[in-house]
């Protein structure tokens, strides 16, 4: 079975550029810092999920790895950051990097086995890995705290200067900096030759291997890079909330991040930046109103995206911008 990600509205004709959308999103994100000083914890949380969704876009959007188990890497990152802090390693930046590396190592070990699969079997196996890790963490209470989670950790100030505050000011800027860095890195990667090779793998594994390239090695590398970023996102959640709960490994988290990416738009990197605020803000706003309402709203949005706007929010914005410039939707690229 072959799942073509093209059905998500992906087109090579608009290769990822470092465009307006990214600049506008990051400018807005900075504006949030001044306009909503009392909502910065939520904003940091949104930033973390944007980062998580970005990691999924690298695997799914670029390399075509369809997965329902990405929370495995998010969770490993979160627990690693928690364990490091509890063991006395409280420097946050190195903590994040080490956590990301642990997640990448797991993906690097799994990749050669599971990435031979495509389509539904791959989805099922990634799901199984996710469920296995969740149950393992649930059972190993001495290690993970089980249901109670890991708590009581503290982190030293960022760069030794910026103290963590209960208003989340440091948290937010810290998350935003990681997000910007990761976005830039992903952008460089996807526009590079390696990024082109990954899209080749996504489009046609047979052709790729009959052009002399080891598809499995490329997929594994992409998977590990993606897991690194997911691990970074998990570590940031642990550091900003000073807590690691079992739910970081849950299947719900894997689904959340997939929905965020599909809503935002798969395969252009910007989808992650757009989907996370929309998804989490709707969730947050409707919480006070009716705890189940957000599910319904998100459900309708998903149906809408699947039926009429395959490119998600990014796709819609892209079309609007192209129209306003007087270009046809599928006009000359570049």
């Amino acid at each position, binding site marked *: 079975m072959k799942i*073509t990600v093209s059905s998500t509205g992906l087109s*090579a*004709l608009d290769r990822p550029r470092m465009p307006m959308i990214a600049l506008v999103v990051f400018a807005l994100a900075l504006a949030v810092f001044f306009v909503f000083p009392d909502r910065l914890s939520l904003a940091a949380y949104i930033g973390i999920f944007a980062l998580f969704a970005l990691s999924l876009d690298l695997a799914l959007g670029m390399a075509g790895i369809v997965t329902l188990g990405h929370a495995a890497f998010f969770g490993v990152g979160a627990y690693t950051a928690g364990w490091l802090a509890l063991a006395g390693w409280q420097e946050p930046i190195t903590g994040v990097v080490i956590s990301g590396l642990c997640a990448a190592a797991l993906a690097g070990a799994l990749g050669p086995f599971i990435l031979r699969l495509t389509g539904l079997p791959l989805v099922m196996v990634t799901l199984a890995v996710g469920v296995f890790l969740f149950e393992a963490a649930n059972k190993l209470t001495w290690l993970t705290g089980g249901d109670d989670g890991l708590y009581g950790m503290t982190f030293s100030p960022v760069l030794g200067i910026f103290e963590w505050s209960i208003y989340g000011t440091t948290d937010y800027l810290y998350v935003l900096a990681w997000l910007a860095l990761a976005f830039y890195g992903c952008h460089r990667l996807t526009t590079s030759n*390696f990024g082109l090779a990954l899209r080749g793998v996504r489009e046609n594994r*047979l052709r790729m291997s009959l*052009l002399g390239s080891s598809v499995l*090695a490329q997929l594994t590398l992409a998977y590990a890079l993606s897991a690194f970023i997911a691990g970074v996102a998990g570590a940031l959640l642990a550091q900003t909330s000073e807590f690691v709960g079992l739910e970081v490994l849950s299947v719900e988290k894997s689904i959340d991040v997939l929905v965020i990416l599909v809503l935002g738009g798969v395969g252009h990197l910007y989808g992650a930046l757009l989907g996370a605020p929309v998804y989490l803000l709707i969730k947050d706003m409707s919480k006070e109103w009716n705890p189940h309402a957000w599910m319904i709203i998100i459900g309708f949005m998903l149906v809408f995206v699947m039926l009429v706007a395959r490119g998600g929010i990014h796709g819609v914005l892209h079309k609007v911008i192209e129209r306003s410039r007087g270009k046809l939707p599928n006009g000359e690229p570049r």
Partner: protein
Amino acid sequence: MTDNLLEAIGLQKSFGALKVAQDVTLRLRPGERHALIGPNGAGKSTLLNCLVGKLIPDTGSVMFDGQSVLGRKPYEINQMGISRVFQTPEIFGDLSVQENMMIPCFAKRDGAFQMNALTAMSSQRDVIEKAEEMLVEMKLADKRHMHAASMSRGDKRRLEIAMCLSQDPRLLLLDEPTAGMARADTNNTIDLLKQIKDERDITIAIIEHDMHVVFSLAERITVLAQGTPLVEDTPDNIKGHPKVREAYLGESQDAA
């Protein structure tokens, strides 16, 4: 018999109870254009699949330039110098024509995507130039920004041939390259394949139903029927061969 570029001997391949290849032998001499003909379902595509590692034959041996091909991964076989064009074009549908062309050029330049982060991130300019050169040569340059999937079947085929050629393979395997093409395109393809042969040191094996193509291109012909090779000979001898007329040419001439 080390002077053959490729020697497939005693290949057998079954899908369940269906014996698709029974004791198939194929010998390709260096630099020749060799046609593989035979009725539908004779096992021609299956034979090529065994040569490039897409299928693993049940028994038999495949030697390329004195080295065994069996047991190697498809990408390793490709790196030995065998390129394959498929019956249904295998291209990167959702990428632009230019990007399709860039991938093999990049693979060739960087030793098939060795995982060297530095070369992977490095300049694309020479890759783009090489891709452009190939596109111009194959008269696809004006379609460079087109979505590959939306091209005509003939153009897709030309693109796939271009992608394979840009690798400078020593052996090019073509599976019905002119199927579904208009006469003019077919003739262009014949000219192209002759020209390729004149310009490069390349051996070509071509599966073809169109006898016009076969007899304009082939220097030697192997006839397959029901999974066994009937004869291997020069075109002139094949034309007059009674067994071949019976098994193949009779049919196709009636149909045509």
